């Protein structure tokens, strides 16, 4: 399995494995199980490296001591971290802090309530004023419109009266002969001459 991953896989396997295991793996390299052994390696017996017993004993003792100390330190530190976390959550100060926070929260909520009420009052006043303004404007507009309508009616009535007055002078079948006689008797001349001072001369020669 490991030969498929290659060298990078070896390093990853080294990281992922627990600390105390010895890293030994079978690396096949280029050849598979069924290939014959190379000529130079015929009759080779693999021998593990020789171990010096004295050295081994000494090293073993030292290593056990070392590992003991390291493990103890690590556990101590872990415990410290856990204790700190625990104290923060359920320590003596935590209750006080929680209580203080609750108190603060209540105060702020009260203050918020007050502000809301104050603003509500202001808003009510403002809305009232606005509705009054709107009503007033509406009344004004209605008044204006009524006045305009009255004005219009008055003007139209004036026109009608004027037309009625003028209607007395219209030509009808009875007036017709009389009016024709009048018309033929009075020729009207609209021509006039004017000079630079603005004096108009209405009497002109009619050809």
């Amino acid at each position: 399995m490991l030969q498929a991953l290659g060298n990078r896989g070896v390093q990853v396997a080294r990281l992922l494995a627990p600390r105390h295991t010895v890293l030994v793996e079978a690396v096949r390299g280029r050849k598979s199980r069924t290939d014959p052994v190379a000529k130079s390696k015929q009759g080779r017996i693999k021998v593990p490296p020789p171990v010096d017993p004295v050295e081994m004993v000494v090293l073993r003792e030292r290593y056990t001591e070392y590992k003991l100390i390291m493990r103890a330190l690590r556990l101590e530190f872990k415990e410290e971290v856990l204790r700190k976390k625990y104290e923060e959550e359920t320590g003596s100060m935590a209750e006080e802090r929680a209580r203080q926070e609750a108190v603060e929260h209540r105060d702020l909520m009260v203050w918020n309530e007050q502000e809301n009420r104050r603003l509500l009052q202001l808003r009510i006043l403002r809305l009232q004023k606005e509705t009054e303004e709107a009503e007033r404007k509406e009344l004004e507009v209605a008044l204006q419109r009524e006045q305009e309508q009255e004005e219009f009616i008055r003007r139209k009535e004036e026109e009608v009266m004027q037309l009625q007055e003028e209607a007395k002078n219209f030509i009808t079948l009875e007036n017709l002969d009389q009016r024709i006689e009048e018309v033929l008797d009075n020729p009207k001349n609209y021509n006039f001459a004017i000079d630079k001072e603005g004096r108009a001369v209405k009497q002109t020669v009619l050809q």
Partner: protein
Amino acid sequence: MPRYELALILKAMQRLETAATLRRTVETLMERGAVVRDMENLGERVLPYIMTKHNQRHRRGSYFLIDFYAAPSILTGLLDHLHRDVDVVRPTVLKKDTQISKQTCRGPQQ
């Protein structure tokens, strides 16, 4: 109803015939539902140019103005009728302006 003005140029005739033509014209107007308001005579004058109508060439004519109120639909019929009248040299119907603005007219403001 809108207000129109009939500017009529009649042939230079005797007074009696002119009166008859005018009467005829006004009666036509009234038949077609117009209300005749006023009539004016601008005199018998030399025409500005020789006008040919009904195979006659006219040098002099009498000008008349007739104000009337009428519906716009009658105008084409009326003009047709007047063109066919032998004594009428030239009929013209114009619309009267409704209102001249009472403001004094100034020139371009400097």
